[in-house]
Structures are given as structure tokens and as C-alpha cells.
């Protein structure tokens, strides 16, 4: 590497992984949207043609990002944040409604989704706030500030309604954890989710029995030297049981039927074949079709452009949120595991890069980027393969969509730009 110019110190491993993901994503978009008349791939009336155009735009975005001075992003982080908050507010007045969600500005040639822009801005703003010399994340006040930066856009996006995008902002908690926010908060959250799910599946009585048995086991097998005070433990058990009791109440009285159905499907609560069939045809239709499509791919898949369910358009929204089911059908287990592997390597590489930053801002921003990408990846594929309930978020770099691709790319390349300048930061 020359070490000079905007492309000089770019982390090429990441760039190659990125390019591979975009390329494979486009191949699958091509497969889902190609008709009988094989027109040119540059036919912009087709979805694959448009996506190619978006890829071009994303490349321009990359060039733009790389030519901008690194400090620009740090300095103007607050401005970006305020602009994106204004844009989100503006949606309430000027927003364009697509598929029931008022999430877009109609720019004529392009529908801009400000929630995508806000992801970049919020990551930058959070990094900027946390890296400030005066910020101490261990103090309650600063914890609240950080929470506010994260939750403000999430709250604005929620009523669009776009609960999926809104949920994504919670991924930025990983930045906080990295910077010293107590990890046991995460522990409590996970414990609560597990309690919630197990209560629905087995009922409060069994959850209580399980908790007591676990407590007894811990006391039986702990080393005699380790002292665990008995009262707090009993307190935790009691609170857990109370929580478990409240779960049933919330599930039956606060949730709506469609939510209950989603959980019923997700946790296999419904055993009655007839009702299950009904759910599969209505609320669980997408998941059912997508699982079936993936399943039918088997080990080697049906081959590129040979996916019968993909071609037949059986999986709704397959080119956007359900793009991974096309991989499953046409490329089989080999293809899906390769994509999982590719994503994992990509993320691990990014984490490695983030950890090597000398500048706190760069590291924190990097963590923001990674958290957002991982969260999308987790929720999207989890939903497509039937592990998680239906939440509409795109698969980064894969799913069809201009705003998504361009802002994910900018999100990533701002980080790579920061990384390429890491040696100067010490000066």
C-alpha cells in the first residue's frame, strides 16, 4: 500500500468482504426478480437493475466519504444528529407512506428513508458524547444522557410505525457496555427474556420449580470456601416468580391477538394442527413460506435461478427482508453457512479494527457501526429461519433497497476512513 491518498490505508480485507456480501446479495435479488424475458442487468425498470444503480450510488458515497477529512465526522457529529432528528420529525408532516409506514421522503428519483441516515448520525453522536473528556459513563447522569441520545430517534421512528428500525437503536447499548456501562444490565435483560419465554412455554409453576432446583444445585456443588448469602438469592428467586406471574397477565391482557399469535408460532405454543395451519396461512405466512423455501434447498440447493419457490414468488418480500430464504433455496446449506461465515468474519474483522483504534471516538463509533450491523443481521436472519418473531428489518448489504444499502455503506466506510487515519490520531 502506498500509504498515500484516500484509498491508501483502507482495510482491504473488510472492503473485499463487503464487496462479496453486496455481490452475493445482488445475485439473489436478481434471482428473485428476474422474469421470463431475460433483459439486460442494466434495465432500471427491474429490481435488480435498480439495485445495480444503488450499488453505483453507494460507490459514489464511498468516494465522497474517503475524500472528506476524518475530523469532519467528529466535528459535525452533533449537527448530523440534529439534522436527522429534524428529518424524522418532518416525516410527520411531509412523509410518504409506503406499505403502511410513513418512513420516506419522496425525492422523485429516490425515496429517502431518514431512519437509515439517523443510524449513522446517532452512532456518530453517541461516540462523540462518550469520547468527550468530561463524560464518565459510570455516573448516572451521563448514563441518562447516553440513553437519551439513543432513545430519541427510536421514539420518533416507533410511531411511523417501524418497530423494527426503532428496535435497532437498542443495539447501541453494546457501545455503552464496551465503555464501562455495567454488563449485568445485559445479564438482567437476557434473564428476563428467558423467563418470559419459558413462562409462556411451560407455565409459572415449572419456572418456579426450575429456579428452586437451580438454586439448590448451586448450593450443593459450590466450593465450601465460596460464600453466597442466602437472602439475596431468595429475593432474586421471589422476584423472578413474581415476574413470571406477571408475564401471563401481560400476555393475556396487554398483548393483542396478533402478538399472541406471533409468539404462539415462535415458541411452538400452539399444538392444535388446525389452528397452527390457520396461523401459518395468516400471520405466520411469511415465516412458514420462508422456512419451507430454505428447507427445500437441502444440502446443495436447487441451483442459481432454479429455486421454484423463489421464482414463484411464494415468499413475500423476498427481495427485501426475506432475501436470505432465496440463498437457502438456491444455494442450500452450503450457501447459507457460507453467508453466515462471511458475515461472522466480517464482524470479527470489524471488531478487531475497532479495538486497534487509538482514538476513543473512532473505537466508539466503530462499536456503534458493528452493533447496528450485527443487530440487523441477527434479527433478520433469525426471523427468516424462524428463530425470532417477525420483525421487519433488512439484511445489511443484501436486501434490496437504496437507502439501506447507501447508508449502511456510508456507516461502514466512515469507520474505515477513521481507521485509515488512526496513525495520525496520536499526533
Amino acid at each position: 500500500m502506498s500509504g498515500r491518498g484516500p484509498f491508501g490505508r483502507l482495510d482491504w480485507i473488510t472492503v473485499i468482504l463487503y464487496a462479496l456480501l453486496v455481490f452475493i446479495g445482488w445475485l439473489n435479488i436478481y434471482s428473485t426478480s428476474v422474469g421470463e424475458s431475460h433483459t439486460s442487468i442494466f434495465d432500471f425498470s427491474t429490481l435488480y437493475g435498480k439495485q445495480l444503480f444503488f450499488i453505483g450510488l453507494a460507490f459514489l458515497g464511498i468516494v465522497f466519504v474517503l475524500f472528506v477529512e476524518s475530523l469532519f465526522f467528529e466535528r459535525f457529529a452533533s449537527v448530523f444528529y440534529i439534522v436527522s432528528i429534524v428529518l424524522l420529525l418532518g416525516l410527520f408532516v411531509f412523509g410518504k407512506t409506503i406499505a403502511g409506514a410513513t418512513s420516506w421522503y419522496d425525492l422523485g428519483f429516490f425515496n429517502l428513508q431518514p431512519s437509515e441516515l439517523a443510524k449513522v448520525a446517532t452512532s456518530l453522536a453517541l461516540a462523540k458524547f462518550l469520547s468527550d473528556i468530561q463524560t464518565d459513563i459510570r455516573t448516572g447522569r451521563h448514563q441518562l444522557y447516553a440513553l437519551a441520545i439513543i432513545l430519541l430517534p427510536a421514539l420518533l421512528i416507533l410511531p411511523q410505525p417501524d418497530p423494527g428500525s426503532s428496535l435497532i437503536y437498542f443495539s447501541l447499548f453494546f457501545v455503552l457496555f464496551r465503555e464501562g456501562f455495567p454488563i449485568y444490565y445485559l445479564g438482567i435483560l437476557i434473564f428476563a427474556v428467558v423467563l418470559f419465554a419459558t413462562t409462556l412455554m411451560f407455565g409459572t409453576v415449572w419456572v418456579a420449580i426450575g429456579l428452586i432446583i437451580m438454586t439448590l444445585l448451586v448450593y450443593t456443588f459450590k466450593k465450601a470456601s465460596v460464600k453466597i448469602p442466602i437472602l439475596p438469592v431468595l429475593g432474586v428467586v421471589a422476584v423472578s416468580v413474581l415476574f413470571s406471574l406477571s408475564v401471563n397477565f401481560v400476555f393475556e391482557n396487554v398483548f393483542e391477538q396478533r402478538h399472541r399469535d406471533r409468539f404462539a408460532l415462535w415458541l411452538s405454543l400452539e399444538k392444535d394442527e388446525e389452528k397452527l395451519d390457520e396461523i401459518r396461512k395468516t400471520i405466520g405466512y411469511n415465516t412458514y413460506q420462508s422456512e419451507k423455501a430454505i428447507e427445500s434447498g437441502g444440502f446443495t440447493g436447487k441451483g442459481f435461478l432454479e429455486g421454484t419457490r423463489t421464482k414463484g414468488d411464494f415468499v413475500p418480500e423476498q427481495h427485501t427482508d426475506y432475501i436470505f430464504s432465496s440463498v437457502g433455496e438456491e444455494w442450500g446449506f452450503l450457501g447459507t453457512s457460507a453467508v453466515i461465515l462471511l458475515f461472522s468474519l466480517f464482524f470479527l474483522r470489524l471488531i478487531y479494527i475497532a479495538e486497534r483504534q487509538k482514538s476513543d471516538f473512532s473505537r466508539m463509533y466503530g462499536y456503534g457501526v458493528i452493533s447496528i450491523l450485527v443487530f440487523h443481521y441477527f434479527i433478520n436472519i433469525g426471523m427468516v429461519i424462524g428463530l425470532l418473531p417477525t420483525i421487519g428489518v433488512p439484511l445489511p448489504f443484501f436486501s434490496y433497497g437504496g437507502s439501506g444499502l447507501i447508508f449502511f455503506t456510508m456507516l461502514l466506510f466512515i469507520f474505515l476512513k477513521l481507521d485509515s487515519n488512526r496513525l495520525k490520531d496520536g499526533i
Partner: protein
Amino acid sequence: MKKLLLSSVVVLIGFTFIGRLSYLQLFRFSPDQILDDPAIKKVYDYPERGYIYDRDGKLLVGNQPAYDVMVIPREVKPLDTLEFCNLLGIEKPEFLSKMEKARRYSPRLPSVLVPQLSKEDYAKLQEKMRHFTGFYIQKRSLRYYNTESAANVLGYISEVNEWDLKNNPYYVAGELKGRTGIEQQYEEILRGQKGVKHIQKDRFNRDIGPYKGGKLDTLPQQGKEIQITIDKTLQEYGERLMHGKRGGIVAIEPKSGEILAMISGPTYDPSLLVGRQRSKNYSKLHYDTISKPTWDRSILAQPSPGSPFKTLNALIGLQEGVIDDNTKFRCYHGFYVGNTLRGCHCGGGVRDLNSGIYQSCNAYFAGVFRKIFDKYETTDEGMDVWEKHMKSFGLGDYLGTDLPTGAPGRIPDVDYYDKWYGNGRWAASTIISNSIGQGEIAATPLQLANMTAAIANRGYFYTPHIIKSIGNNGKIDPKYTEPRYTTIDRKHFDPVIEGMANVYNYGTARWVKIPGIDIAGKTGTVENYIRVDGERMQLTDHSVFVAFAPIENPQIALAVYIENGYYGSRYAGHIASLLIEKYIKGEITRKDLEKRMLEKTLEHEYAKPYSGEPFEINEYEW
């Protein structure tokens, strides 16, 4: 810890996903799920059903086009409803309700709007069709009958039912299948093999092209034409003669076992079961439980055969050596069983074999029957021998024809009487009615015709069959070309045939001689009973006749059975002689007889038991 958190999360997610994907794609995957893949539809290409020709190559059954008007509701553009209805020949409300029904079925898939338009309506509609977007005409193939006869022989085709679908994986709901007669028996030959196209569908069930470029597709195989042994002219003529009469006629060519005619009365025009009126007509025929037009009496009716059966008893007597040509029995206008006199109409006196047959003397054959049994020490032995001889004529069991239905008739055996009377509590005299073809014997007209063919051949017959040739190579099942020998030696037939010839010369059928043709025949008059309101009532006797001709080199053997036609020569004998003349000479010389047979009906006889009033049987007036 905090540095490793995110990496651990990424790795954990990766393993979870791979785990779930292995479950889906490796564990739950099964290679034959292409069968229930909703994206792949099989579309069938049906070959034309094979034609059916008679023994001389005359067309019996062909195909005709029919035109269904189809609609795809979503593609329908506003139209001049009134004009369209006029063209289709339906009323506007009917049109609207059919459109609504089609829309409810599916807006995207074609439905039949008006089925089976006639050629004329089609011609009118065709040129205007382009004005009506969303509608199109689909051609279908229906059976076309070049005859109004032979409905029961030819059979009909109808949509497969659930039973067919369960038992034969070839069929798919909505397909047609031969239901009775030839159409059923030679279904696989006539229908051919449908071609399959695998079409890729989208989730709205619209075609989006062939699956795998048509690699799995097959081409349809044309159904083969077949030629049957029926003589179209004879069959049609026989059905005309059966007008107004119930019964069955079977004519066989003795030297080959080919069935020349198989007539059941009453019958129906096979064209009734084709086209728009099909189901209405079918119900009408199927639910006529009194005259039962769909019940083929020629192969399913099993009356007692009556006197024609005497010829077999004579043959058994000769074969067993208990009588010869000159053995004589005295007829006391009947014969004694114990102290009871059983009647006889032969006129009385001394009877030998020849006059026993041509005068149809009951006493003579009762004597023969006793002698057969007397030869053996026990009744059981005698019965076994008698049964063996009888069955060698194809009686008492299914003949093994290539007809989808049939009846076994009955030749009683030791077990049968042991059950009825008790072991050892019966003897030849108990079952003496069998000697004259009454009693417990039952035979279908087909069996009687076959028995006559065996006599005509002097001792053997070919399994009666209806197939003459299949497709171009013409080969048929070899079992129809192998002779089946009876247990009677050839030499014993001549005296019996002489007696049968004298039936025409001096005997019970001397009024129905045909100039120039030597016929051997035997009349039969069969008593019969029914139950009306639980009371056993005798009806007018069934008229039966068997005959073959010419005596040397027989060309036709036939059995005619006319329900309640009274004595053998009255209806059965006349009809038999007309059929023989028609078949051998090609034309009828006795026009007055022909006219009488064509016009006479027995409807008044059939109405008697249902009239609710007292009635006379066996009327002499006719």
C-alpha cells in the same frame, strides 16, 4: 470481558444460525418434497381416445369435439352482456350467477362458463369471441356414437370417482374413465397415456414457464383403436327385434368364440350418456328399477335355462353309456316321482332320443337323469359326475370372457343339496327338475349361447370374447384362441344334433323354419315366480331358444331369452330364426314374420304384477 463481549455474541449467533439451518436443510429436508411443492403444477396433455370398430371395420365409436366457454374473471373487460348471452344461448341472470360463481372459485384461474357448446353455437360464437376479453373457448373431446345400439356392450365413460383415485394412481380428479363394457375392459388401450408437463407457478397460481426447461415432461401416447367381434348389423337388428321386450340375446361364432351380438332389452341409445344432458339421462336410466335398462340381461340375467338343457342331459347319458340312440322311455303325459305325476306336453307315448329332444319330452329326460345316477353306488358320486360334465360346458361358473361384468349361473352340487335337504336326505328323484333345466340350475344367455356353440363344434368351445384386434398388430390374449374341450366325446353329438335339427323339421319349432338353412335348435319354456306383497305368484313363462346354423359348418350359435314370452318358439324361436337368417343370408325373406316381431311388445305382460289387479298368465292370445 467487555472487549470480548461483542465477539462472543457474533460467534454465538453464528453457531445458533448454523444449527438452525442444519436442522432445516439437513434434518428436515426430504428429496421427494417436489411432489408437494406448491410451485410446481402438473399439467396434462390428453391423447385422443381410441376408436372402436365392429368385426367388419364399421365405425361404432369415435370422438367428437365439444366446446367449453371458459372465463378468467379478473381479465374480463366490460362487455355487451345482452349480445354475449344471446350468442351463448343463456339468460342474463344465469350468466351473472355463473360469473359470480367463477369469481368466487378464483378470479385468476379459468372456470367453465358454459360447457359443451354445439358445433353450430360454436361457429356463431367463434368469430365474435375476440370482442369479449377474458373469455375463451376450450376444445374438449367427447365420445361420438355411430350407432344407437350396443350401449351395454360399448359401455360409457365418466369422471373418475374417489374410489378410482384411491386405487389407481394414474388418474387425477376430473379425468374420464371407461365405466362399463368395452370402455372399461379396454380402458388402458383406448385411453393411451397422458403426457405430463411440469409447469412452474407463482403463489397466485399463474404459469411462469416450464419447470427445469421441461426435462421431466413426457409426451402423450395415442390411445389405440380396437376392433370388436360384434356385427354391427346383427346387433342393431337384434335390438330392433327386442323392442318392447325384456330379455337377452347372445350370438357367438362357434369356430372362434367371437361374440357376434350381445343384446339386452330394454336398452338405450349410447349417445344419451354424452354431452350436456348426460347426468339427467343417466339418472333416468339408473333409477328405472323396473325395466333396468343399464342392467345387461345378456350376461347378468340368470334364469333357469329350461328345455335347451335337456340336450346336455342327453349328452351326459350317452357319454356315461347309460343310454344309446334307441333307449326308450314311456311318457304318461308326464312321469311319476313316487306317486305324484309330473306333467309333460309332448303328447305321450314311447320316446327315444330323437323324439325326446324334438318333442321336448319331460318323461324321457327324467328317465335319462335317473339312469345317470343309477350307474353309481351313491347319489353323491352320480352328482359329482353329472356336475363335472355340466361344468365342462362353461356352466356354473364365470366363463372368463373379456367383459367387465358377468354372472356365474349355477350348477348345483353335492354340498348345495346337503345344505338344503341334509346329508343323505336327497336322491336323483328329489332333484329331478334338473333333468329338464328347471330346478336349481341357472345360466346366463351368454352361457346358453356358449353351450350351444360347444354342441355346434361337437365337443369344444372357445372362451367367448368381444375383442377382435387391438391397434395395428392385432394380437389378442391367446386364451381366446385355445379350444376348451368338454368331457363329452365327439361321436355322441351327432344323434343329439339330429334331434335338435328335427326340432325344426317336426318338433316344437317347426313353424319357424328358414328356407334354405339347416338349423339345429331347442325351445325352452321356463316357469317363473315373483313375490308381490310377500305372496308367491306365478308369471307368464319365459320364452327361451337356443340354436345354431348351418348344422354342417356352423357360423352362428345363439341363445335368446325373452322374459314372460311364454313358450319357447313364440318369441324366442321367432327372433332366433330372424337373426340367423339375417346373419347368414343378409336379408329377411319372411317379411310378415319380421314385421310382427318388430311390432309386438310385451309391455302388457310386464305391467301385470304392478297393476295391483288379478291377472292371467300364459295367455294363448298374442
